[in-house]
């Protein structure tokens, strides 16, 4: 695709101008204050999007989401962020607007197959209809759910007030439980005419009709085959959480696979829109709970972009941020490799070797941020606190064992000794193993062009030979100063994904070794350059902050109406979008391989379901 690019020199804003010139009736610039990109007339969306992809090289649809502008123009808007992969650079933002009553936007699945799940999500949460989508049905919520919860006029069961802080808490607070006002059994609404007793989920019904279940198959010779419908999950140890794969088997071989998710859905985004700006920070920990520092960083970047000149991030804060982000990458990849091996049948021995090293990093997080996993460490304009002088404890509980270590010495030991030792051991233990090779080579192959088209991100994309890493493609923080390589592997199979993760850990150690002297050099400098106020108001506008999280590109799309709460808060979750490729990768493989392929994508259900 990239060789068809006509104007490779144009950056995103240049392309926006070019689009306005080329499609004068369909495209106009987004002139609202604080907004960027172009607004495309939705009748011509497909044509323009095709041009954006083929003629201008924005071949990777990173994020697709909707915004409900109730009371701010009373329209729905679908926002697209497209990147050039692997060239890099700022994203091209384009939008399509539609009416709120019967919102309809043509589906972009034909242009960007990666829009599949994201359009289904927008349909599910906003009720926007995407004609042309091959499989438009609910994705996170179930079919018996009434309404579209992200619409601004939809209220949840325990609804109390539009925005936090709630008035009931102070000064006349009288504690009550949510259940008292909304007793169990009365907090659920069903759509009109919905009958729970005769309910068959749409996914199941569709699968059954494709397989011609429910008809007399014994009498028809066409169906006397070995076809079988198997549900892997939702409660299955191999699915890394409550996740279901509906698999159609022919004998042992997979003919088609459809991921079913949403069992852990809590509408993180709606909660986010009720929250104050900084109140969202601890909630981001709970997305991908294995790499919460990275989640914090992404959200901080998005809001800092919105706040603009109100925050100045001190250099030491940037150094600490990168330190945390890279340590997080190591913890995540250790976990991913350990559990990939679990999925391959090496039950828990490699996983525990990995977890042992991860534990030392979590100890450091605990001493610095206060919690092992729910770190809540970044703030708008810096970090919560400087690194402690010593990692020390006081005995409180019975049998407490007390530690007292110098923080810098501990970090040095960790980065120069413990982590490299552990990576080398994993390498020795697993890389040459014939069992791993025979289980992984050629399994779940994802060619580069398919990976890009389906918006795969992170190690999944890089294992397919695409050298795309946001730390290099669109650098943030102090990454431009640091020396490291973007790891790629050419084959796009399971073994390559394992190797990419292993090598990324080595690159992270390389970064961390450069961070150590910077930490010494900046000792005692300021770590926070933002507002200390607890009621931050962000200027009206939109912003898209993204980081290269261990699992892939994590993006936060936030819209402010100038108030103390986000108008729109969207998370571009890599675990969720990477699943688009699962069905493609699994086709033709055996059941046992699917488990490993899922492990190779490395998902966390907290982020997938949000």
């Amino acid at each position, binding site marked *: 695709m990239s060789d068809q690019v006509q104007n490779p020199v144009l950056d995103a804003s240049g392309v926006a101008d070019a689009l306005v010139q080329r499609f004068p009736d369909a495209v106009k610039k987004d002139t609202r204050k604080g907004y960027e990109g172009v607004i495309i007339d939705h009748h011509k969306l497909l044509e323009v999007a095709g041009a954006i992809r083929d003629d201008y090289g924005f071949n990777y649809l990173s994020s697709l989401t909707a915004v409900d502008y109730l009371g701010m123009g009373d329209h729905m808007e679908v926002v697209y962020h497209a990147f050039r992969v692997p060239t890099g650079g700022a994203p091209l933002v384009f939008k399509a607007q539609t009416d709120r009553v019967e919102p309809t936007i043509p589906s972009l699945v034909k242009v960007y197959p990666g829009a599949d799940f994201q359009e289904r999500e927008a349909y599910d949460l906003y009720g926007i209809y995407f004609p042309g989508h091959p499989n438009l049905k609910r994705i996170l919520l179930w079919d018996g759910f009434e309404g579209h919860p992200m619409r601004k006029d939809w209220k949840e069961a325990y609804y109390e007030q539009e925005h936090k802080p709630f008035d009931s808490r102070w000064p006349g607070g009288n504690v009550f439980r949510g259940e008292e006002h909304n007793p169990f059994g009365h907090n659920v609404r069903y759509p009109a005419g919905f009958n729970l007793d005769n309910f068959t989920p749409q996914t199941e019904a569709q699968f059954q009709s494709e397989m011609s279940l429910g008809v007399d198959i014994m009498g028809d010779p066409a169906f006397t085959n070995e076809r079988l419908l198997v549900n892997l999950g939702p409660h299955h140890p191999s699915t890394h959480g409550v996740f279901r794969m509906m698999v159609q088997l022919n004998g042992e071989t997979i003919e088609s696979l459809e991921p079913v998710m949403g069992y852990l859905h809590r509408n993180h985004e709606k909660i986010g829109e009720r929250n104050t700006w900084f109140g969202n920070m601890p909630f981001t920990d709970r997305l991908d709970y294995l790499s919460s520092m990275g989640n914090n960083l992404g959200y901080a970047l998005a809001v800092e972009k919105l706040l603009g000149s109100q925050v100045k991030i001190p250099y030491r804060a940037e150094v600490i941020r990168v330190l945390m982000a890279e340590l997080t990458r190591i913890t995540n990849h250790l976990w991913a490799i350990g559990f990939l091996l679990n999925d391959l049948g090496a039950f828990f021995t490699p996983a525990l070797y990995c977890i042992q090293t991860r534990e030392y990093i979590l100890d450091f997080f605990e001493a610095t941020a206060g919690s092992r996993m729910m770190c809540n460490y970044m703030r708008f304009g810096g970090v919560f606190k400087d690194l402690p002088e010593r990692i020390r404890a006081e005995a409180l509980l019975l049998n407490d064992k007390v530690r007292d270590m110098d923080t810098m010495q501990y970090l040095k030991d960790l980065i120069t000794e*413990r982590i490299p030792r552990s990576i080398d051991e994993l390498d020795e233990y697993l890389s040459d193993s014939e069992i791993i090779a025979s289980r992984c080579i050629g399994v779940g192959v994802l060619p580069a062009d398919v990976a890009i088209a389906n918006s795969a991100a992170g190690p999944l994309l890089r294992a397919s030979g695409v050298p795309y890493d946001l730390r290099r493609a669109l650098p943030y923080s102090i990454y431009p100063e640091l020396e490291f390589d973007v790891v790629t592997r050419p084959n796009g199979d399971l073994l390559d994904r394992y190797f990419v993760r292993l090598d990324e850990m080595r690159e992270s150690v390389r970064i961390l070794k450069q961070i150590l002297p910077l930490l010494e050099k900046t000792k005692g400098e300021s770590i926070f350059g933002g507002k200390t106020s607890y009621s931050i108001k962000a200027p009206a506008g939109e912003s898209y902050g993204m980081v290269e999280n261990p699992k892939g590109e994590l993006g936060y799309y936030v819209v402010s109406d100038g108030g103390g709460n986000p108008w729109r808060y969207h998370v571009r979750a890599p675990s969720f979008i990477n699943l688009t490729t699962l069905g493609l990768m699994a086709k033709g493989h055996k059941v046992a391989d699917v488990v490993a392929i899922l492990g190779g994508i490395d998902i966390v259900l907290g982020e997938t379901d949000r």
Partner: protein
Amino acid sequence: MFGTGILKGLGVTFRHFVTTFIDDIKYLGKKRDLEVFQHKQSLANVGLVTVEYPDEKLAVPERFRFVPFLVTYNQDDPEYAGKDWCTSCGICAKVCPPQCIWIVRGTDPNTGRPKPEPEQFYIDTDICMNCGYCAEYCPFDAIKMDHNYELASYDRTTAHIHDKKRLSKEIRYWQSIAPTTAAEEMEARKGYDHTDVQKARKKAGLTPSRVGPTSDKAPEPEVVAAPAAAATAEAPAAPVAVQASPAPADKAVEAAATDKPPGPGNWVKRGKRWINLDAPAEVKKRSRGPGEE
């Protein structure tokens, strides 16, 4: 050669297997010693690193955060015994992301005007996400994050809403669990006392702040939470929920003040309190929630 990779991998597992026992043999009989623990934590360790919870626990670092507590003056303070540090300004309730803090602002019964202390203070610990914002934004160092993570209980409906009595802890408790942070905060306040107290003293012509007790003098905290300890201390009050009868608990503390163990059994002294290590962990009866009677 085919199979060498597997052999190499098996070598790693075998190495782990052997090293697991090296320390066990080396430190035979001294497994729980502090010296062994420190060796296990060090870089030189090759064997097992696990800590055998609950027989051993890792003490949590100072910044560790768990369900918050309210700071009060020490009960034996000559001037302000047990006085709340909270001024019911409501900032914690406003910053709380999941909104789990409920405060009733105190009013002066004579004038009817608000006064700077909370009448009631609730934290719904089911909702609390331990983010630490309340402690971070409190301008009076009056709410702090606790270190006691062993809060399991048998009753969900009432035991998990902590009221002011349960939340309140002496300032020396905070000084004992986080000495460095407490000292830094004292420096920032420019004295041991609460900022409002300091102002009042200055107005009255006294020295702004007294020299307060430091963490060295602090007794061990009362919330030692081994199941045996909990059972012994609260045995008379067992079936009741949080706000449960204060009388038996007080009696237990009184009894603990003596130097002799209260009865036969394997008694050890933890701070002010005697604990029977042999006592079976008593299973508390489930108390009924409101509306279940």
